[in-house]
């Protein structure tokens, strides 16, 4: 996964060589992260072939499985997004970050990563159940991630422009709310998905 992100960043570096415009810098970063999220999270239910699933099914409550998966995926996405941010700034420069409120930007990156993980965990489970991998996951997941992507793009753009916390906090509040609702929905729906 890390290799994927690093190579994506490096391709961007080869293509643009130093970005000073915050809007473009921001957009490129989120595009990389979006595709990284799809790639990383599509695997979360794929490794479960029949035997292992039956084993888990007899042992634990499906709800704890989906919550555990969501938490694990959220952690993965946070680590992944922070690492890709590190490589991104290393390769593409920090010119765009000059006026930024760094704390807010990192917060928006983390919330974005958690949000992607929250939405895509259930989608990955559905896609794996349908017996169709990354292709179906992209079709099912993209329209649901898009709203979150728009909100997070706006929030991180504001953070890059160094806008005060009082303005951006509504976005962060909205993102947290969205994450909580998404995980709750997954928690409610997953048991139906699991029984065969």
């Amino acid at each position, binding site marked *: 996964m890390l290799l994927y992100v690093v190579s994506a960043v490096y391709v961007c570096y080869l293509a643009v060589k130093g970005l000073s415009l915050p809007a473009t810098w921001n957009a490129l970063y989120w595009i990389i992260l979006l595709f990284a999220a799809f790639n990383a999270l599509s695997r979360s239910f794929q490794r479960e072939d029949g035997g292992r699933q039956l084993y888990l099914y007899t042992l634990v409550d499906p709800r704890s499985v989906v919550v555990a998966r969501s938490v694990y995926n959220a952690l993965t996405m946070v680590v992944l997004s922070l690492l890709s941010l590190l490589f991104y700034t290393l390769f593409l420069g920090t010119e765009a970050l000059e006026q930024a409120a760094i704390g807010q930007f990192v917060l928006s990156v983390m919330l974005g990563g958690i949000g992607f993980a929250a939405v895509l965990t259930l*989608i990955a489970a559905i896609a794996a*159940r349908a017996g*169709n991998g990354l292709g179906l996951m992209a079709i099912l997941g993209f329209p649901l991630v898009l*709203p979150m992507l728009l909100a997070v793009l706006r929030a991180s753009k504001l953070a890059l422009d160094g806008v005060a916390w009082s303005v951006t906090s*509504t*976005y962060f509040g909205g993102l947290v709310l969205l994450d909580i609702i998404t995980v709750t929905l*997954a928690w409610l729906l997953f048991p*139906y*998905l699991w029984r065969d």
Partner: protein
Amino acid sequence: MKHWWWKFLAIALLLVASIAALRVPLSPALVHVSPSRIAPGEVTIEVTGYNTRFTDGMQAYLVNDSQYVCPVRVDVIDASHARIIAEVPAGMRASMTDLVVQGLTYPGAFFTEGLGEGIERGACGPRANKLDPSGLAFTFPNRSILYESIRNLHFHVPMWFTMIALMGLSVWHSIKGLGDGSLDRDRKAVSAVHVGLLFCGLGLVTGALWARATWGAFWTNDVKLNGAAVTALIYLAYLVLRGSVADAHKRARLAAIYNIFAFMLLVLFLFVVPRLNAIDSLHPGNGGNSGFNDLDLDNRLRVVFYPAVAGWVLLGLWLYDLRERTARLAEQLDR
């Protein structure tokens, strides 16, 4: 008869609302004024009206910061064209001057030069009991930019109401279907989505035409347009998901789960996220644009709009009913 009275109601509502939406005239308004800039001295102003009845001896005057400038002469060319010759005094206070003809105002008609401390108030202000030439007729508001396209309100908006109603119905059947695992519920849910997508397409087409006429482009980067695009993608994805699972019971379950999950997020996206960044929307009621509620004399629109919504929703339910029944018959034939 007992069971299908509502179909007659749908036809009646749609006929009345559609004929009214297309036939009711727009109220008279001034649509064009030239020149756009006036300076002290004599100016000749060409006024174009829409649905107006200009007559000789009609009242016309300029308004600048509640001070009136009376014309030297008013020549009526025809019912919707007139030439006004006025002696503009120096020293008006506001930089924008309005034009009033026959009680119709064209706000901000002229950039005004030669500003000063104010002028003597002319003696030709609004008459106490002016007679509106169309005061008694039923008309739609005539708004700049919108003009005749305001009729589209009665077609474009009901499409989205109908779509949301059908998608809501679909989710209701999906929730019920997850509970009892019945394939009947699944068929109902997918039928509602099929018809809902039809209305989504109609909403996009009517919206694109309206956007071209008023905003200048078929598609703009607007919160509500993004919402419409996401909605269309979600339900197309729903159909793709159904297409990729062979087993009927498994398909019913997976589709129901996706339907519920997507609909809940969609509701959040359509009704909560726009509140976060409402400033960006070009749609009425957002970002300082006037909405339905503060549209002047909006009741004239409401009288047609609500029957139109009811009619289209009923038509949507009727289509859903037919779709569901043909799907059931097709299944029985396959068996």
